[in-house]
């Protein structure tokens, strides 16, 4: 294996940073292995920690096209893999009838490539295929993916088996709203992305918003850590932290205070129950979280 350089993982981590993504060592290791072995990478973790963003960063890092399949309940092979172009088939059939000729209706000519097939048969080299929130899809879609993830091929009954020209780099994300099958897990490398530490989050915020004051990014990172200790229905993720820093800057401030935080709370709190919880008792919990963030600074 040629990639066993002393800095292979560090190099991947640095490349990801250049692509706008700050990865923890375990995630950088998983990405390095997924690209080198190569294997699909299954990423799980709470909402808003950067699972989807990882695929975008890998795409930018490799300079490859990103093909995204957003999963939802009821997603089927017609939307995920391929579909026959019925209108064109009918037109071709009528033309053939007029000429008294025959036409092969089930050929690649009439095949509409959906994201999975598009990624598999990409002619512009290996693409990065993001299968996002697979836990939202039905189990049938998982079964459909097994052949693609395991063998890099798909079978279309009318055409036969289509093999990947170049195996795409696959990132599968899940929020764990349901358990994925063992068969799918076994075909993937695995990484859990947790909420970042204060230090990591400060680094992420500074990286994405370099014009923000350092004390503001550090303060927001500590505040996020404090808020995640509150048992909120929807704990704030990294994207909420970015929004809060941007909002504070937009309001012309470089430091949070209770009043300002109250005005910008919509960037962090995304449910009425959480809002009520934080602002109840004259905002006691919110003030306490902010004080904890201030205290940790000291």
């Amino acid at each position: 294996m040629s990639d066993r350089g002393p800095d292979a993982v560090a190099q991947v981590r640095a490349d990801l940073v250049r692509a706008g993504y700050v990865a923890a060592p375990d995630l950088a290791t998983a990405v390095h292995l997924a690209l080198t072995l190569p294997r699909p990478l299954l990423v799980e973790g709470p909402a808003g920690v950067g699972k989807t963003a990882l695929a975008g960063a890998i795409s930018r890092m490799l300079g490859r096209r990103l093909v995204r399949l957003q999963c939802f309940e009821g997603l089927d092979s017609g939307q995920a893999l391929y579909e026959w172009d019925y209108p064109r088939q009918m037109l071709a059939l009528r033309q053939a009838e007029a000429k008294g000729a025959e036409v092969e209706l089930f050929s690649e000519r009439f095949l509409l490539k959906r994201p999975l097939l598009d990624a598999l048969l990409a002619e512009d080299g290996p693409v990065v295929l993001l299968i996002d929130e697979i836990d939202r899809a039905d189990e049938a879609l998982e079964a459909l993916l097994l052949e693609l993830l395991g063998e890099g091929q798909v079978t279309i009954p009318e055409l036969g088996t289509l093999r990947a020209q170049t195996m795409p780099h696959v990132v599968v994300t899940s929020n764990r709203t349901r358990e994925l099958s063992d068969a799918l897990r076994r075909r993937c490398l695995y990484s859990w992305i947790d909420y970042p530490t204060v230090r990591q989050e400060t680094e992420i915020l500074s990286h994405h918003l370099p014009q923000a004051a350092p004390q503001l990014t550090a303060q927001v990172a500590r505040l996020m850590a404090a808020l995640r200790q509150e048992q909120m229905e929807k704990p704030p993720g990294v994207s909420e932290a970015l929004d809060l820093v941007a909002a504070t800057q937009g309001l012309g401030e470089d430091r949070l205070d209770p009043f300002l935080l109250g005005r910008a709370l919509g960037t962090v709190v995304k449910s009425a129950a959480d809002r009520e919880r934080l602002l109840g008792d004259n905002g006691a919990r919110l003030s306490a979280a902010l004080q904890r963030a201030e205290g940790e600074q000291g």
Partner: protein
Amino acid sequence: MTHGELAARVRRLAAGMRQAGVAIGVAELADALLASQLVTAELEPQRLALRATLARDPRAQSLFDQLFPWLFAAGSELPADPGAEVLPAGQGGQVPSQGGRDRGEALPEFIPAASDLTAAGTESVPQQEGDWRYHAWAASFLAWADRFGGGRAEVGRRLDLRRTLRHSLATGGDPVTLVWKRRPVRRQSLVLLDASRSMRPWAESGLQLARAMARRRADTEVYAFSAQVSRLSRRLGDGALTLPAAAWGSGTRIGEAIRAVLRGAPLAPPRRLSTLIVSDALEAGSLTPLAGALAELRRRSAVVTWANPLADSAGYQALTDAARLVVRAADRYQGLAALTQGPRRRAS
């Protein structure tokens, strides 16, 4: 460490994880050995590489993190029963700590040691007069009510309008073939049994009801909670199974237990759960986590049934704050005997 030694240790690690119930196949083992060649030979890169390849869910990661030092840092052999050593009896089901993270990554089924239900410290719950037929009837009633009694989400066969319209393209726009959603909406049963001391007189009845529900529906998930949460789903066939005993004074934090199950258990997607909780709703923790957990439970469930044995008493009123919260959150709130002995009462 030579490559041969490394391979031997990885194999022993995989064997230990298999012994603790993690499925590791030859392909994963091959991936792990390849991965170990792709990173530097220091311990931490090796650990991260092996972890990404051998541990493919949070539970397996948790186990890996505790087994790895045995074989790689200390270089010693694995204990005879890795699962039991990882979770010593004294811990009795505490979630293995991972840097203080509170994200439910260690599934409740992993929480108890393999023998926790029969080990020392577990005492038999007094047997209440149990009649299997009545519990089976109650399970049937709940399934029937689940199927026809509505709840807050639809069940059964659903027309797939979008796919019907798309298929109609093949027939000149006429929707000749109606396309139905692939699988009818099917709910998963979740049973939570309160194993606190105050619930001991009704523990056996709750367990029987859980068994009856598991017989009706194979994917029923059953958990017992007191100070800890234990997964019972795969042990219900054991006739000697009893609920794990709660320690004196430990208190039952119902809200935290519900949240632990919802975050860690392999459960159906939102609105597909049919949840039954057998508990007296005597919350030892504060109300805020309970309110949050009940709200989350309600979002995840199509229907929440709360069977409170205290509600069987004449003149019972939900006066405590916790009970009021529960009454508001539950779609059905009734006594345990009223649920399990309905036909007998009517017969008499």
